[in-house]
């Protein structure tokens, strides 16, 4: 709580802007059913297709006469949830994998790290595409595909932090006092490494949303008629002169990604004492 207050007190404009953007999107996602003027899926209007933005349809209408504004709002539910879940899974898997690898060390560390490098050596988007396509396109499969390519980042970060933390005197002291491995890991090492992990997770949130949109754009994420930003951008690709169909979901992706990045940057600056105080 104290940390949070200190964070907000900082003269960090970018951090606050990011926070405002992200909070606004989360609120939009939660309140979407109340806020939208039209139903994003079932409100089809054959007579009102391809209408440009107006007071009636703020973001215009698409090829089936659906309100783009309502669809963008609803799209935030899927995109943000998918991004958060992906990061959470990768975070959990990574922290476990990296923690064991760094703490145990030796041959186990070598094997585990070579394995994570193997996963990382594939081009991420291509690997995600292959996995999502092989499992069949739907939301949970693309989240799973993204988690598979994402966890090694966390594993490697955790490992390097664990290795540096476990050499500290208080860890040695704890070991001399006869603490079990589990206790050392849980009470000494985890609390001291979670900060950097949180920074990375926030920074990654934007990337995860971007990649999920990318998969949907390629038809590997959500199935129509669900409203999802990446899929909405691809809806407008063939009908390029109706610019609003692609532009608004594109701007939505952009704003969420940059908002998450600002928060991540702010967190990192706060946690890095050398950067503290510089605004």
């Amino acid at each position, binding site marked *: 709580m104290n940390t949070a207050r200190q964070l907000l007190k900082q003269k960090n404009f970018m951090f606050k802007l990011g926070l405002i953007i992200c909070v606004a999107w989360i609120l939009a996602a939660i309140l979407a059913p109340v806020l939208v003027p039209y139903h994003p899926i079932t409100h089809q209007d054959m007579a009102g297709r391809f209408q440009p933005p107006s007071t009636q349809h703020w973001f215009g209408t698409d*090829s089936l006469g659906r309100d783009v504004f309502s669809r963008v709002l609803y799209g935030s539910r899927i995109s943000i949830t998918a991004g958060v879940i992906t990061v959470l899974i990768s975070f959990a898997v990574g922290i476990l994998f990296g923690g064991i690898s760094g703490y145990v060390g030796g041959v186990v560390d070598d094997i585990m790290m070579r394995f994570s490098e193997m996963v990382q050596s594939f081009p991420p988007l291509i690997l995600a595409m292959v996995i999502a396509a092989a499992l069949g*396109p739907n939301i949970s499969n693309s989240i799973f595909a993204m988690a598979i390519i994402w966890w090694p980042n966390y594993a490697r970060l955790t490992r390097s932090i664990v290795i540096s933390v476990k050499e500290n005197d208080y860890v040695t002291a704890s070991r001399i006092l006869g603490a079990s491995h589990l206790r050392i890991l849980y009470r000494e090492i985890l609390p001291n490494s979670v900060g950097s992990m949180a920074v990375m997770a926030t920074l990654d949130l934007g990337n995860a949303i971007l990649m999920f949109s990318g998969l949907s754009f390629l038809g590997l994420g959500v*199935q*129509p*008629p669900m409203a999802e930003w990446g899929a909405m951008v691809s809806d407008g690709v063939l*009908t390029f*002169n109706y610019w609003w169909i692609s532009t608004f979901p594109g701007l939505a992706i*952009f704003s969420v990604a940059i908002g998450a990045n600002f928060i991540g940057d702010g967190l990192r600056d706060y946690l890095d004492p050398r950067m503290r105080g510089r605004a």
Partner: protein
Amino acid sequence: MKKILAILLTCSLLVSLLAACAGGSSGRVSTPQGSDASGSGAVPAQPNTVVIGAQSDLITLDPGNMYEPYANMISYAAYDMLYRVESGTMGTPVPSVATGVEIDDTHTVYTFPLRDDVAFASGNKLTAKDVVWSINRVLNMKDSNAYSNVKIVEKVEAPDDYTVVFTLTEPDASFLVKLTSNAYCILDSEVVKEHGGSDTGGDTAKAWLDTTSAGSGPYIIKSWTPKEQLVLEKNPNYWGKASNIDTIILKEMPSVDAQITALQNGEIDISLGLNTETAKQLEGKEGIAISNGATALITFLVMNRDEALSPEMANPKVQEAVRYALDYPGYLTLGGEGCTIPLNFVQNGFSGALTRDENSRDLEKAKALMAEAGYPDGFDITLTCANNNSEGLEWTTIAQKVKQDLSEIGINVNIETLEATLVYEKMRDASMPFYVMFWSPDYYDINNQFAFLPGTGEHGTAYGNRTKWELTAENQPLWDLAGKIQVETDPVQRAQYAEELQQLFDQDNPFAFLLQHPKTFAYRSDRLENVAYNDLCKIQLCDLVAK
């Protein structure tokens, strides 16, 4: 560092807004006004050269081997057939080198008297022996794709220099339509024989015919670089009405955007790569006309009769309910100008084709049928749709409309989009209960459409097998009528049978036919006139007139 970020953010916002505005104002000034281009530097160097931009994917120019969509655009320019497609129709045959036809009572012997004033580009006279030689050449090329169109011919003879007699293996009322395709092109037998041509098998003239032509058409193939361009030059010895165009260049342009730009700045005169949606970028541009031509491409829903896949969807009553639940005017809007809805499996433009009454949506009747089938509360079903489109209309858009329409009678549709190749594979395995598909015929006659009639197993039909629609005593009348249509050579009687067949088919079938699509193309109206489209030979090159 934060300042940099702030600047970056502002810049990217500005860029995206600018991009949005640029995309929005269609009156964007990119090139000098198109109307000023005629007669100035933007026009191709020779005034009588016409350049066509398309993605033709031609793989050979030998009329005996060609089978690609653009095959007949070239074969009609360089060669003549006994019959050709009448301009502006879909597959209606009219005499060309033949002056008419006499058909005997068995409907298997066709006697064609020939014109005596036709000469090849080489100067040789075109006689009956050239016709016989050309047909025998293809008859002996059993590996060729074009062979499927000539295999109905048992033998072909020339009793004199200007008479040709075809004997068919069985009566086939679509023979004259087949006769208009490139497989029946008449080659200059003297010249082709010099280059390895043979009418008794072992023909080796294909390589030579890929570089030039040996026909009597209005143009000669001058040169061809696959995937780059094909050059046609006017035939000075052409026997018919001479065109005022000296050279036609078919330029391979796989990118639609490149075609649009090239058409706007006058680099090409006709763009064939467009569709209903992409053509909108050219709307209102000066000097450019957008036009529609009818095609035989139809999009429809397939509902499998296999109860193992979905007992609900396999029910004929449910399938009928689906047909009553669809909002046909909505699909016409989606398809854009020039779309029509065939009543069922016969395309508009074919003899005897019927059109669906677009106000035939009847939700009450559909709901009653659902109750009759035993599903008053509806059911869940997966609708598979490939990542594909019909002339620019995305199948996913169609699927979403279908989902909306069927929700009104309680059917909850879940859309599943898959790679097109995967969908085709599943289609042949008949392993999908409900899917979106399209179809384009091999030749423009109702006989080709019998692939939609019931019949499973080895002697079944394409869609009989794909839907497990079995031939039973009840639907046998469909085939009784089809049998008559197959052989009936009187056009009026045949059209009447065709109408009867469609009405009978409409009572029970596992399909819902949604749309027949137009082909949208654009050309420089300040340079060309008489740009006519037909589905067989795309642009009729011999009809083009330069201004």
